[in-house]
Structure formats: structure tokens, C-alpha cells
């Protein structure tokens, strides 16, 4: 199926869930990633079960933070 990942068209197998997509995209630390699906931020607990559909728009980015210590 065709998805739009971070703004770019990409192919993924039918039935791919968010967790699998992150693996396919070689996201090394998925626990530190926020995923937005069609404009809605997903709860992390749904990553395993949220199956993507043709034409879905997926955005993901890493947590960005730090500190001065």
C-alpha cells in the first residue's frame, strides 16, 4: 500500500502496524518517537495495534529535550 511518511510517498506491506512501520524505517529507539497519523497524535500504547491503511499520512519524530546539567 502507499503511504505518505514525513511528507514523502512510500510503500509498505498491507496490514502494517505503526510499530512495524517504525522498524521498516529503521527507527532505532521507537520508545522515544511520537507518531502523528492523519493529523492526530497517537498514544504510544496503540502503536502495536494501529494498522495503517492506503493513503494514510504518517509523521514521526523523536522526543527533543535536554537540560543544562
Amino acid at each position, binding site marked *: 500500500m502507499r503511504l505518505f511518511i514525513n511528507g514523502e510517498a512510500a510503500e509498505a506491506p498491507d496490514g502494517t502496524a505503526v510499530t512495524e512501520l517504525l522498524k521498516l524505517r529503521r527507527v532505532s529507539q521507537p520508545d522515544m518517537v511520537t507518531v502523528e497519523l492523519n493529523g492526530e497524535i497517537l498514544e504510544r500504547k496503540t502503536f502495536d495495534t494501529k494498522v495503517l491503511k492506503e493513503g494514510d499520512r504518517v509523521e514521526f519524530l523523536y522526543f*527533543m*529535550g535536554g537540560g*543544562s546539567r
Partner: protein
Amino acid sequence: MKLTIERTVYHAMLKAARRAAPLEACGLCGGKDGRVTQFYELTNADASAEHFGMKPEEQFAAIKDMRAKGIRMLAIWHSHPASPARMSEEDLRLAYTPGVIYLILSLLKPGKPDLRGFVLNGGNPDEISIVVGQ
């Protein structure tokens, strides 16, 4: 490696850092070809003098705006209101995003702000050259 930061962007960073002090400020820098042309001040969700964390919804909005402008995220920026412009242990531990420059603006010496940039090399910070220009 060199990163050029447009003067207007630098002043926006400085203004954001000074306004937020004594809390840390944070934001994203967009541009292309090693030149930062756009600064996105984001909310420090931690509202802390020693920590920062960005809000994902604001991060997504900034990234999409960069895409619409034909630029990309070049750097992740934050301020150190009362400590030097170096990557702290926490900065290093939480530097998950690959392929970006980490910019830190120190206000330790109020009359002499210090902006430095780093890339991670095997988990270690390598300082790069920062040029503020037109």
C-alpha cells in the same frame, strides 16, 4: 563543518532566550545548504531553568511549515540561562534525532551571549563552526 545563521534568526534566538530566562528556551531551526533561515520558538513544556522538552504538536507544526517552505530542520536549539554553551550529560542522553546540529545559546555572561553548535560523533559532541551573517 560550518553552519551559517542569518542575523535575524540569531536575534530571534537571543530574544527568546532572554525572555524565557531564568527558564530554558527551545526551538527548531530550518534552512538548507548549511544556512539557517527560519527560527521556530517552541514552548518549553518543562518550564524549567535546567531542563527543556518540546511539545510534539508544535514540533510537527514546525516541521510541516519547513516542508511547505522548501527547507528542512537543520538544528535543534535551546538556551542555557546560567551555564556554558556545552552539551550537558542530559543533552547528550536525550539527543535522539539523527543528522541534526545541536545549538546551545548560553546567557552565562549576560552581556556576551555565546552560541555554539555540535554534531554527535559516536555519541560524543563535536563542535562545529557557527557563523552569524546576512
